[in-house]
């Protein structure tokens, strides 16, 4: 074990060049995830590529009606941004429910997507909103839908030479985010549900229960162009619970999560309908 090499680019161009050059470097954004892994000895990176000095990654702006969050925007900034709160209130809320202010002052938008930790709040909400991650390399830039970015536990479809530089979030008619915690208020979700109603269609994403975000377009289609009453909401909840194979961890067993998924999907849909 040796000290990791410290790479601290001052511009996006430099960051992308270093990313291309150091395939074995671990990207360091807010450090709330990498720090825990390093402290516990699960991660001993050869190099750390710190994005703290890259100004271009810090903006919050609206571009062509879509919200664009830079990869190094902190959770706390999303939560408090007037732009986000007025146009994407459910997103501001999802970020506001992460851990504690200390963590939110540090954790970043790019980090929470790139670490692909199943027990994070923002990915489910971003996915339900139809957000796309902007992945950049020296050679090109591409957009990846959030559910295609996260491919498994701590695994993404990012290529070795790519960095997440931003995420762009469409505006929708209505959205809700429900975080079910089985323990402390500052805990990660045991089950999270993000639900969106847009142009008559409903999209429900369940997070924190498996390696990937859970969507069931067929179940959602039941609510297409129809008002969500208690019965329909319960049916969609039951469909989600049936389809998902949840994991077991300290926050709850697989069997328990199935129960909660049915309840929380139903509640999210009714909340969505109530507006």
């Amino acid at each position, binding site marked *: 074990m040796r000290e990791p090499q410290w790479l601290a680019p001052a511009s996006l161009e430099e960051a992308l060049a270093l990313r291309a050059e150091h395939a074995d470097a671990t990207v360091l954004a807010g450090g709330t995830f990498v720090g825990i892994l390093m*402290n516990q000895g699960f991660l001993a990176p050869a190099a750390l590529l710190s994005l703290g000095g890259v100004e271009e990654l810090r903006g919050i702006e609206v571009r062509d009606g879509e919200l664009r969050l830079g990869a190094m925007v902190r959770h706390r900034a999303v939560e408090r941004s007037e732009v986000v709160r007025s146009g994407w209130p459910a997103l501001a809320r999802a970020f506001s429910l992460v851990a504690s202010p200390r963590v939110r002052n540090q954790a970043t938008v790019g980090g929470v997507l790139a670490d692909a930790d199943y027990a994070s709040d923002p990915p489910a909400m971003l996915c339900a909103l139809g957000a796309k991650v902007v992945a950049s390399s020296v050679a090109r830039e591409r957009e990846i839908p959030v559910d295609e970015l996260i491919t498994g536990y701590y695994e993404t479809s990012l290529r070795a030479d790519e960095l997440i530089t931003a995420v762009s979030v469409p505006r929708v008619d209505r959205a809700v985010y429900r975080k079910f915690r*089985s*323990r402390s208020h*500052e*805990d990660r979700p*045991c089950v999270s549900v993000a639900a969106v109603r847009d142009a008559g269609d409903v999209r429900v994403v369940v997070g924190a229960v498996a390696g990937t975000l859970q969507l069931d377009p067929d179940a959602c289609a039941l609510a297409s162009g129809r008002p969500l009453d208690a019965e329909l909401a319960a049916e969609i909840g039951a469909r989600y619970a049936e389809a998902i194979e949840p994991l077991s961890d*300290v926050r709850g067993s697989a069997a328990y999560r199935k129960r909660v998924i049915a309840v929380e999907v139903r509640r999210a849909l009714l909340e969505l309908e109530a507006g």
Partner: protein
Amino acid sequence: MTPQPAWMRAVLQGTVRYSQDHALPGMLHGRILRSPYPHARVQRVDVSAVPEDVVVLAPDDVVHLGRYGCQIADQTVLALERARFAGDPVAAVAAASEEEAARALALIDVDYEELPAALDLDEALAGTVLVHERHQISDNDAAYFGIRPEEGTNVCHLFRIRHGGAERGFEEAEVVVDETFETAAAQHAAMEPHACLAQWSGDRLELRTGTHTPFNVRSDIARVFGLAEDSVRIVCPPMGGSFGAKTFVHLEAIAAALARKADRPVRLVLPRSEEWVTNNRHPSLIRVRIGARRDGTLVAKAVDSSIDTGAYADCGPGVAVKIGYSAVGPYRIPHVSVDSRCVYTNLPPNGAFRGFGATQAAWASERAMDLLADRLGLDPLELRLKNVLRDGDVFCTGETMHDVHFADCLERVADAIGWREDRSGKGLCVLLKGMQTPSRASIAVEANENGGYTLRCATAELGQGSRRALSLVAGELLGVEASEIRFPNPDTELVPYDTRATSSRSTFMMSRALEEAVRDLRQNGTRGVGEFHNEGGLDPETGQGVASSHWHQGAAGAVVRVDEETGKVDVERVHAAVYAGRVVNRPAAELQNEGAMIMGLGTALFEGVAFADGQVTNANLSDYEIPSIADLPALTHELVEQPGAEIHGLGETAVPPVPAAIGNALGSLGIQVTELPMTAEIVLAAIDRRDAKDAR
């Protein structure tokens, strides 16, 4: 605004030098290499790859040293032939920086041969795997601590109470409740980890260590190194919290052995994750049988308790004793039988934790009382009031109770939560907790040349406010402001003997000793010494004698709401009443009550050390959950005083009754939970059981 005492100002300004802040010139930084296996033969420790400028402590370096253990000397400085838990120290290093020390750890190569392990109480009680091949108990320990091991088993201590004849009593009973209750291991999670700085001068050892048991550490460390006790000096800087974690030897033996080999001072500060393999709270499995007549008169109780003390006993035998009589509860019961075992497992050691067994005991005893009330169709409050100990009653230990306030505490919490208006979603718990008996406290008071006085005593500051409390008492006795009292850190070279700053005993015991010391000072001019001791003790075979020279008494009431679809419990209100006798420092006493209730809430709902194959799987404060500020219910409390009464310690009293009060509140809704923590999942399973029963 009241001016802040100097101590508070220092805490807030960050100028307090806690245990981990002490440093010496030329000091090295230590780290510990730990066994990854819960039970393994340590075959070879190869340190050849470690750079020469790093000092390595290997089993060969400590093989000639003595054993330690506050009640059973069962621990060696490093694991010698066998590592007995995943986390057992097998080697240690000291290097110029913490980072270098961490890197050196990775260069030590250890060959292990895995052995079958006893990974929970059931496996340990089955006795197929013996954690210690034979019990390391000297005749002296057996006599002094009344340790009674069961040879050929993992039971290192069996404490019994025989009062009346339990089996005869059960024949008289018209209703019997028989239920088993469990609690999980919990971590103290003090803000500051364990920290120790060791320095040798020739054959003299000085340890600046975060402990509130300086004299116990001194005698154990002297035994390890074969030194006279006065060749070992223990200085106790203030601690950033302990909650019992920093009692008895944890890092001191390793730090001292490293420093001796290095011939340099060595500081050892535990990384947070290692706290979970250093000292946790005893998990317990307690079967309670309680019998009553139809009118609610208690006639018999049998308690069969086992606690998991981990791979080394630490103070587990003492915890087993305290659980033994606490689980009987503050009730008049003519026929009582208790068997309380302290059991070795291949898990991290468990030790003192705020409440010292009273939490586990109250959980079992007070949940059983509510189940009994339910069976009898009686109001749980009335059942308690009918049987609760009152002045002059005899406890199961044969001692007569004085200065008794259980009924008063119960009535107060019942009133506070509106018990008599509506009992739905509400629960009560009453608590009896003993204080270290026998024990001895002494203190010296010196008149300073430039005015004011200095107190010299072994009472360490761990955030409990002892400095302030004793300074206030001294100021009152000496007729000066508390700010005129100096209170240096405990130092075994400079302070007279004290049993230890545990068991909520310091304010009471030390203030009594202080009265003597001030009297002595008045007679002798510039220095006075005072001593106070309490007498008693229990026969380990019959549990008869004096368990406690005075009693910590309290009660808690809780109001809950339950999301019945998910089992998530929302605690809306907790109220505690704590008997204080006489309050010395009101703001601090109130904070003790609040902090204690919050700790009780964590135990009730969230906290449990999780294991997989003997490994702790939640050794961080993200996966191990303590309550956050957003989890707190309306917390209210009262300090019960009595004109002319003795000071009663109150640092722990409001912890143990909280889980059972919450459990009983769930019970009032028909949701009967028997294990802690009451996670949402466990509560949902209890709701399912209730609904299945209702459907039948």
